[in-house]
């Protein structure tokens, strides 16, 4: 400690990697730094992170980046192969496929964000409440979770959308409704490991309410494994949403949703393959990005789950 006269010149690295943090914030930042160093070594995970960041940037700057308007039809230039004017070709209405993909990133990101903001949260609440209270609350909640886990997710999502009517909002609702159970299981398992810990008893002795303990002490501890699982699941969410779009149950035309774009290119696939191929590449790359990122995060945040 004494050797470090000027913290700035000694460098942030020392401050972050010290074994004796001076404050809670320093300890947290140090942990994050250690995680980041481990994460950075996994080149595939970094690639995944870059893909996800690219998705966010493309979605944010879609109108700036897209060379054409996504709905601008040009019937004289239908089904053109990739060229200098249309890098990825044009579709059956002469719309620029690249521009539609760029705008479609917004839809994909929106679906991912909405599902990620709802299903894991619902699972977190159910799982922590069941784990914390135990007894009949646990039995009832986990029985329901187990029952829901045994359902065929994709088919139920299809049935939900069929009932609610096609559309991107209903697709998101259907996906979220069918994907909460695994999160509840994870959150409960994490809660059980800490429920009897001394610091929980200490908080209870100080008079903290159950709500306060669950919100302030238990939920934060479940977050790491939930983030890993959510990230990995997002790849599946993208694929499911695209599948719904492909079947005509998700986003409706003329929205540039990638799955729906594949469906509309399907009839031309033998002659004008790019119409269906390009959106598929987009889905694949983004989905791979989430998979790589989730896989890397799992190594850093959840080493047990090797």
């Amino acid at each position, binding site marked *: 400690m004494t050797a470090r006269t000027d913290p700035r010149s000694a460098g942030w690295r020392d401050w972050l990697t010290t074994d004796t943090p001076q404050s809670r914030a320093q300890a947290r930042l140090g942990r994050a730094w250690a995680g980041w160093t481990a994460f950075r070594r996994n080149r595939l995970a970094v690639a995944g992170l870059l893909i996800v960041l690219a998705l966010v940037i493309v979605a944010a700057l879609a109108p700036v980046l897209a060379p054409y308007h996504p709905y601008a039809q040009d019937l004289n230039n239908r089904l053109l192969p990739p060229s200098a004017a249309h890098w990825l070709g044009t579709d059956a209405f002469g719309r620029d496929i690249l521009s539609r993909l760029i705008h479609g990133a917004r839809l994909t990101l929106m679906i991912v964000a909405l599902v990620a903001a709802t299903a894991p949260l619902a699972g977190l609440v159910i799982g922590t409440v069941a784990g914390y209270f135990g007894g009949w609350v646990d039995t009832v909640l986990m029985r329901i979770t187990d029952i829901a886990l045994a359902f065929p997710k994709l088919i139920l999502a299809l*049935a939900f959308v069929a009932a609610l009517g096609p559309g991107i909002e209903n697709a998101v609702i259907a996906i979220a409704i069918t994907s909460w159970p695994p999160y509840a299981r994870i959150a409960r398992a994490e809660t059980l490991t800490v429920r009897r810990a001394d610091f929980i008893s200490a908080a209870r002795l100080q008079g903290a309410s159950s709500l306060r303990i669950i919100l302030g002490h238990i939920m934060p501890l479940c977050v790491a494994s939930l983030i890993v699982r959510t990230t990995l699941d997002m*790849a599946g969410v993208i694929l499911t949403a695209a*599948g719904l779009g492909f*079947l005509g149950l998700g986003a409706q035309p003329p929205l540039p949703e990638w799955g729906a774009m594949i469906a509309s290119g399907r009839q031309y696939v033998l002659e004008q393959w790019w119409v269906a191929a390009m959106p*598929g590449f987009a889905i694949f790359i983004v989905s791979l990005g989430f998979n790589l990122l989730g896989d890397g995060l799992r190594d850093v945040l959840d080493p047990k789950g*090797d």
Partner: protein
Amino acid sequence: MPTLKRGLTLLVTVAATLLGLLLVTFLIGRVVPIDPVLSALGDRANAESYAQMRTQLGLDLPLWQQFLRYVGDVAQGDLGTSVLTSRPVLEDVLRVFPATLELATVAVVIGAVLGVPAGVFAAVNRGRWPDHAIRLLGLIGHSLPIFWLGLMALLLFYAKLDWVPGPGRVDVFYEGMVDAVTGIVTVDALLAGETDIFWNAVQHLVLPSAILGLYSVAYIARMTRGFMLDQLRQEYITTARVKGMSETRVVWGHALRNIAVPLITVIALSYAGLLEGSVLTETVFAWPGLGLYITNSLLSADMNAVLGGTLVVGAVFIALNLLSDLLYRLLDPRAR
């Protein structure tokens, strides 16, 4: 009597799960913004016949009574009538299900035959390049939209290379030439002694089942790797090595035997997943199975057919879960 008690618990769980599934399909059926009375009578029904039909359909009863009625109907095999085919849904589903069964079964065999060795290989080479390569391939497999992969595979192997026949279960001129005994074309062709049709059906089966199977390879390989790593750390593995056994026999004879039971569970679960995943594959390959039936019904808002199909897939799901549980108890000497 612990066996009896366990058996009862299992039975209650299965019954509760089935009931939960029925509740979900029932509720989905209620939120549909389609008036079932009007769809039964047509738009021009007068008020009197409307009320009559409403009573007949039980729609004036409280919701819980309607649910009981629904459970009773389903228990008697009454899933309603399909608007699209004008036939009882159960009849339709039983007719199309063998095609899905055939597809998913071949797919799960492909998944297990590729996935288990890949997982073992990755575990044995943990941290070295084969492990990383298999992991990356698995992640790639999990990132490909299956319907798109199917389309691209058709484009490449059917249209460009002409290695496989196109969509459908057999070539058009073979269709209906063998009696549907089991409903599984390959088996029916063999039963009828029609080897030409059998080979034609096999060629039609290769691409869709390979695409569907690839989807489970990654999952099976990943689980196998994890199980295998757990086992390779165990002391009995050292014992086998001390005996002077070759590494091949240590891995495949000793370690694999210990993961056989959990692996069967994993394979049963991915089988269930494939039955479900066949929805999109069947659409792309015009495979006349349950998946195609459900999607066609979806597009024409034929809710009886959709919910009936969902119920059947769900029941098969639950049955496979139950089966893997029973196998676990039967096969593991420690659980007996």
